[in-house]
């Protein structure tokens, strides 16, 4: 069954079985690796080729937007609360956007996916079994593009691209004397974690140290075969 949805664990018990006509493409990579730029380019390319695309991104649900902002502005410092805020945001987008879009044959481009939550939490010493259970209802993407970058290349990009912020530097973890040290230590830990996840979940790595155009070319090469398995028309 090519269109049988595949989940990390058990699917939501109340979710009606459905035929997954669309494709789920996740793009992962640490802060400032150029993910959003690539998502925009890929979306455009797919649409030109006639595919209907739905884009979704981390913390973008209408439901949780306000609470997440409130938390980020300093009204909580607890890791578990943060994780659950993001999980609620994800579940909302998953049930109300991702599933319906896949059901109707769209290509879903997910700027960050559950791996982001796992990486961030494991860096913060979370129980890895707990976090995996939390997201066990999520669909396994058809392809997970991983924009692999090293810390040396990331630093100048972060500075040129709007600067380092409090959360991207993991300042809640007190990993350095100043913003810069903290950024380097935190992002290095995240990259290490992403690399581990890449092996465990068979990510398709893309060398994100290349130029924007070259990266996009590589991404398209990976995406093409996924599109080729077109769902058969059922009578």
């Amino acid at each position, binding site marked *: 069954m090519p269109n049988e949805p595949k989940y990390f664990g*058990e699917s939501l018990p109340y979710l009606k079985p459905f035929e997954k006509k669309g494709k789920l493409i996740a793009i992962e990579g640490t802060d400032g690796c150029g993910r959003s730029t690539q998502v925009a380019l890929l979306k455009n390319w797919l649409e030109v080729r006639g595919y209907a695309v739905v884009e979704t991104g981390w913390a973008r649900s209408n*439901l949780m937007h306000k609470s997440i902002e409130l938390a980020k502005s300093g*009204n909580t410092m607890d890791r578990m609360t943060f994780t659950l805020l993001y999980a609620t945001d994800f579940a*909302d987008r998953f*049930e109300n956007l991702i599933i319906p879009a896949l059901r109707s044959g769209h290509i879903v481009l997910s700027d960050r996916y559950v791996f982001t939550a796992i990486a961030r939490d494991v860096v913060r010493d979370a129980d890895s079994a707990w976090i995996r259970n939390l997201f066990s209802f999520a669909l396994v993407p058809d392809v997970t593009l991983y924009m692999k970058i090293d810390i040396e290349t990331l630093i100048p990009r972060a500075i040129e691209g709007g600067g380092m912020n409090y959360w991207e530097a993991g300042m809640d973890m007190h990993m350095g004397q100043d913003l810069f040290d903290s950024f380097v230590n935190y992002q290095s830990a995240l990259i290490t974690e992403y690399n581990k996840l890449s092996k465990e979940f068979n990510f398709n790595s893309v060398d994100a140290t290349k130029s924007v155009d070259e990266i996009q070319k590589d991404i398209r090469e990976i995406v093409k075969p996924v599109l080729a398995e077109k769902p058969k028309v059922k009578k």
Partner: protein
Amino acid sequence: MKVFEKKHGYPGKLFIVEGVDGSGKSTQIDLLKKWLESEGYSVFYTEWNSSELVKETTREAKKKNLLTPTTFSLLHATDFADRLYYQIIPPLKAGMIVLADRYAYTAFARDVVRGVSPKWVRDLYSFAVKPDISFYFDMPIQIACERILSNRAEIKFHEAGMDLGLHPDVRESFKIFQGRIMDQYKKMVEEFDLTAIDATHEIHDQQDVVREKVSECLKGYSTKRTIYAKRAKVFWRKFTVS
């Protein structure tokens, strides 16, 4: 992580009450609080679904009926986590007595009735600490429903489980929903070793039993209030960033 496997090692004590709406649990915890304070203990009280962080979001989402069983469950877990780390564990570390009106068991009952997996929701809350005593106020469903239906002019949409589409009539839906929740509670009494109290007894008789159990648990515990004897209402002062 197994759910509520071991006791918390904090110097404080945690007592919680559970039961369906109308079982009288809030009255009982209120009386317990008055008594403990009169005995000179430092008491901290917290209730389900009251964290500032998600209050607004939950209220709005419920009003507009935007929630799925999973987001409903996760929002309440977020509320719980926020209160656990700000209102439950810090006072326990400070050696206070914490009283909670509803605990994770409420989620185990309600969320499962709404359709989430029992195992998933139990694992979700596995970061919680095990209460020293969990009182469950047991009452026949008819009496509990009558109490609520006769005392309240309006039953809220989610209180009646209207999101489940059980019955078009709010009051009928309420009865079915509460009945199912009660079934879940009944199963949990053994699973989590809840202390069942017969909620059909007179209020003061129930309170006697509650106080007796609490006294027993407080043997050897002696932390009393400071000489200032002020009542702690907020453990953490919130701050705003403008």
